[in-house]
């Protein structure tokens, strides 16, 4: 087949630019909206997903990680005594107040950990190190929130919950879904910062012994430790995400924006592909008059759509990578995992081919007599 589809596309540079701009706009719009949704979703359960634990022991009726209720530390020993438990550690996650140098206060989410345990440690530490948390009053926070919390460098001293706190390091990319940044510290400091009694914890993280059965250990924990709930990490992660994304309505707004992005993207692509086809309607009429079966004409139109999709997707991805990269320094991260980039290709192809189908409908209705008009 002579390269009619390719030539039709590349012949009119202005039209090509308009078409590709439409597709690129759609691709970037969808990537941004879906990436924001993914970013928000991921942020809600960041702490749980990075815990490296298998099970979370919580008080009864704790719907999400920020809503933990303190319970007796003595349960830690009961948990450790359950067969199949390889490791168990206490964890505090609670909101408290950070006092800036200018006297202003901001809400932060204190995360109290056992520094020597591999479970629930700050990740992506870019300045300082986790071991430095062993120093008195030491805290690590994310560099994203430096400005918000009035921090400029390691070594600065602030006040958390009325207690002295010294910044010993920074992480990168640990976002909180809420406006309260995570502040990592030792379990003991966290009790002071968050005003939790000395003999209380909020969570117990459990790592299974090698070969232990998850469900069996969970069952044993529920049997031997009273007044607690035991969640798998993925289950607790889902619960937390669901709470923030859907119960609060925040996620619904983002999801609706993502769906709107898809719809607007499709409409823009449909409009541009349709316009490109209509621009060549007389040629398609001539093709049909020459005896080309509809399938031949459809092939040309589909080829045009597919070429547009490939180029549009490639350019769109290039722009998206810059947008995604730029968002990493902002409060709302846009995530684009490789699966999403690949999925976007098929979505772009689908949008372009779908739009071409709309224009094919126009081509099938060409007035045959049009080819005889000068």
């Amino acid at each position, binding site marked *: 087949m*002579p390269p009619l589809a390719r030539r039709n596309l590349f*012949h009119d540079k202005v039209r090509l630019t308009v078409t590709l701009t439409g597709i690129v706009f759609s691709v970037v719009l969808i990537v941004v909206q879906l990436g924001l949704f993914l970013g928000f979703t991921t942020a809600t359960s960041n702490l749980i997903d990075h815990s490296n634990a298998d099970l979370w022991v919580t008080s009864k009726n704790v719907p999400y990680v920020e809503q933990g209720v303190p319970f007796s530390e003595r349960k830690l020993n009961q948990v450790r005594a359950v067969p199949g438990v390889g490791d168990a550690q206490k964890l505090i996650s609670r909101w408290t107040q950070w006092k800036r140098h200018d006297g202003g206060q901001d809400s932060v989410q204190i995360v109290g950990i056992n520094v020597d345990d591999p479970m629930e440690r700050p990740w992506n530490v870019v300045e300082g190190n986790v071991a430095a948390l062993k120093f008195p009053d030491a805290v690590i926070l994310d560099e994203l929130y430096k400005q918000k919390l009035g921090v400029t460098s390691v070594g600065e001293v602030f006040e958390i919950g009325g207690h002295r706190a010294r910044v010993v390091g920074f992480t990168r990319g640990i976002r909180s879904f809420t406006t309260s940044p995570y502040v990592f510290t030792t379990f003991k400091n966290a009790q002071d910062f968050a005003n939790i009694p000395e003999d209380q914890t909020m969570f117990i993280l459990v790592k299974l012994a090698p070969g232990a059965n998850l469900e069996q250990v969970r069952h044993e924990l529920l049997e031997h430790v009273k007044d607690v709930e035991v969640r798998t990490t993925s289950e607790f992660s889902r619960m937390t995400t669901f709470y923030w994304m859907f119960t609060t309505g925040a996620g619904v707004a983002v999801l609706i924006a993502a769906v709107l992005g898809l719809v607007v993207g499709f409409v823009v692509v449909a409009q541009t592909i349709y316009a490109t086809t209509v621009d060549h309607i007389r040629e398609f009429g*001539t093709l*049909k*008059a*020459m*005896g080309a079966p509809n399938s031949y004409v459809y092939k040309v139109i589909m080829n045009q759509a597919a070429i547009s999709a490939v180029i549009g997707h490639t350019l769109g991805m290039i722009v998206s990578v810059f947008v995604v990269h730029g968002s990493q320094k902002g409060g709302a991260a846009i995530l684009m995992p490789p699966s999403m980039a690949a999925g976007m290709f098929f979505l772009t192809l689908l949008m372009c081919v779908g739009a071409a189908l709309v224009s094919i409908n126009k081509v099938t209705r060409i007035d045959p*007599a049009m080819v005889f008009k000068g």
Partner: protein
Amino acid sequence: MGKMQSAIAVRQLTKKYEEGATGTLALRGVDLDVHPGELLLLMGPSGSGKTTLLSIMGCILTATSGSVRVAGREVVGLSEKQLPALRLENIGFVFQGFNLFPTLSAGENVELMLDLKGISKARAKKRAQELLDQVGLGEKYDSFPADLSGGQKQRVAIARALAGDPGIILADEPTAALDSHTGRTVMEMMSELAHKRGRAVVIVTHDSRVLSYGDRIITIEDGAISDKNEADVIPPSLLSHQLVHAVPGLA
């Protein structure tokens, strides 16, 4: 004078466009035969039904009633899926506006027709070159329509129409957009197609300059044939042409 097999035979053809409350009757009981080796001019005022008749003979429009036989096959009643194959096999079109694909070179425009017929790319390229040579545009293979004159475009269109090796050529005002000299060249080419290559050529025209090329001139008014300069019989010039082709060695 004996009757011969018509390339196109139209009988009691009517076409009604279903527009408005009553519709418009574009053709009313048209009878017409077009023979191989004949150049027939179809004339008439605007809106008389010429283009509709040409479209129906070209299997682009379907008739409301009557009979249309193209290359011996009844086309009235054929489905929309069967018509393209019939066009591809038997009919070449030449349009007033040339209708070349602006994004394809002259050679590729001709190749496109050959591709439709399922001819391989290498053979199509060779054949397209031969056809362009025949219309005197061999050196313009890689030129795009925008770089060709009106006459050259129409010659490319003729080469394209011939690419499918059709027995019938239907042309709609092929000289309307051309100056008189170029128009004559195109008409000589059409005449040659009819008289030397035995194609049945039907030309819709308003151009009085081309009258001398027609073996017959049919005038249509208000959807009916109002005047024929010959009855539906083979003109003497055609008879000799047919005789030459029928008797080997006579040529």
